[in-house]
């Protein structure tokens, strides 16, 4: 489309963009590189950019010390689980707000967001007691539930904005074709909103994956996710940089990989809706 961009401009933008991108990415790159250094090399000054002695020792040690895969499994279960259950609740809610709005729809949306404003530390003790009494402490079910609850407002919000971009008359067409509500949602709405749903899913998985307050405080041994894994490497006595970096690399790797793979989807998804 439109007029061609001059090569000079292309290169200017390319160089500028790469510089900015590398600066923003640098702390992560540094973490990843540090994971392959020895503890001594990790704190060299002036810093050694590439590991002077490449080593996988940190990774082995981390795995030997705390079972990465168990934490990984727990993280996957609670973040994916909470996101899927959240979707189950959020899709109908977003459907009604997008396609049958009332005067109060905007208020309900704002109210939903405001439920996220309660500072988590302030309610830790009450929630802990409730969890204890329900036998949910240190259980995947409990963590899944609480993550679902704290992310639900954002999920409803995003889905709502995506759904609003979908032409109502296609849904009406399905009603004329004899589709009852759940069929309308399953066969028509959801497939059309796939990009939006994908980005909502991803965002929620990221938020759930990185949620560190509840997952840390409500889990012990059985349900501990990767946030607890990380917490066992930050600031022990002694040098810990390389090990922390290795643990961090392991903890963010899955989400980074998912993020990278779905980057296109994410961008397309948001283009499709969110914010026009």
């Amino acid at each position, binding site marked *: 489309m439109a007029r061609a961009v001059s090569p000079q401009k292309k290169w200017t933008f390319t160089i500028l963009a790469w510089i900015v991108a590398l600066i923003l990415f640098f702390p992560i790159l540094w973490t990843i590189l540090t994971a392959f250094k020895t503890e001594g090399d990790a704190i060299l000054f002036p810093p050694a950019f590439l590991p002077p002695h490449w080593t996988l020792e940190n990774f082995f040690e981390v795995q030997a010390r705390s079972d990465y895969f168990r934490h990984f499994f727990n993280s996957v279960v609670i973040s994916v689980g909470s996101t899927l259950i959240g979707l189950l609740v959020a899709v109908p809610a977003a459907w009604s707000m997008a396609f049958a709005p009332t005067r109060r729809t905007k208020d309900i949306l704002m109210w939903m967001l405001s439920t996220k404003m309660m500072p988590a530390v302030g309610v830790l003790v009450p929630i802990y007691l409730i969890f204890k009494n329900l036998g949910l402490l240190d259980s995947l079910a409990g963590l899944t539930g609480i993550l679902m609850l704290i992310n639900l407002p954002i999920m409803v919000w995003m889905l709502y904005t995506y759904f609003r971009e979908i032409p109502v008359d296609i849904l009406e*067409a399905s009603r*004329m*074709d004899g589709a009852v509500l759940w069929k309308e949602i399953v066969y028509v709405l959801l497939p059309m909103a796939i990009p939006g749903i994908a980005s909502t899913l991803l965002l929620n998985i990221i938020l759930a994956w990185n949620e560190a307050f509840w997952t840390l405080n409500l889990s012990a041994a059985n349900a501990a996710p990767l946030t607890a894994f990380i917490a066992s490497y930050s600031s022990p006595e002694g040098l810990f940089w390389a090990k922390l970096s290795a643990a961090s690399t392991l903890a963010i790797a899955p989400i980074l990989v998912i993020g990278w793979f779905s980057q296109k989807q994410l961008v397309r998804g948001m283009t499709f809706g969110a914010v026009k």
Partner: protein
Amino acid sequence: MGKIVLQGVEKHFGDVKVISNVDLTVEDGAFVVFVGPSGCGKSTLLRLIAGLEDVTGGRILIDGTDVTDLPPMKRGLSMVFQSYALYPHMSVRGNIGFGLKMAGLPKDEIARKVEAAAATLNLTQYLDRKPRQLSGGQRQRVAIGRAIVREPKGFLFDEPLSNLDAALRVNMRIEIARLQKALATTAIYVTHDQVEAMTMADKIVVLNAGRVEQVGSPLELYDRPDNLFVAGFIGSPKMNLVGGRIAEGYGAATVGIRPEHLLVGREGEGWRGAISVAEHLGSDTFLYVDVKDVGLVTVRTQGEAGLRTGDSVVLTPDPARLHRFDRDGRAIRAA
């Protein structure tokens, strides 16, 4: 199957009365066209019949059953949306077959019916494409296919051809008319295209500001409009309407004469005026003649009349084709 009756139907949006007290009977198997100016409520009325909106007052009967409170899927009608509203994620096959799938038909029966419909609409080779891979005309045909495959009690068409170019429009118009006759299904068709309305309808319903102005066959409306609104609305170019002394001469408050019913001469009795604009279409010429006491009068002559802007001409109305209206705009009929 498929008699649709509206009894005193009303629709308000908030304070705005969009449809007021419409009574209408659409006979089984009839092809009824709704026409009217933009915003007069055509689409709204169609959506009320479909069940996509609630009526504010009145009842809707289909084959004698009161369906006023039934949701769309229970009314047994199918609809072609102005915007097609195809399912973008389904193939043509999926789009056409969706209604049948919802009705729970067995797979092979769906396949058979979809293929039959596709054959009728010349879509067979596109069955596996997605809507975005189709041209406008093909999409249109898919929308129609989706409506016909279900063999519903009635079709509702909302300006289905408005997005097509002239050539495609003519073809589709003929095809739809043929199909509707073949299936003998009741059809309600909304359009703002004069030619479509005149050529397709058994009956035309002229709407204005949410009211029915006149119901009748195309030629009835053309030849005997009930009132000034219908007279002005049906026919293109528009009927010339003249008031004042000339109308009084005919014993009416207003007289109307269609552009094609004015004879043009150089000399003689009649309305004398100068041609202010002449539009040459090749097949016809539209003359806009400035007549004293009357204003700009449109005249349609066949072919190239050899007349040019500025020429002085005399217009003679065909008295048999003259329409007379009283002070309230109602037609005065010879007893």
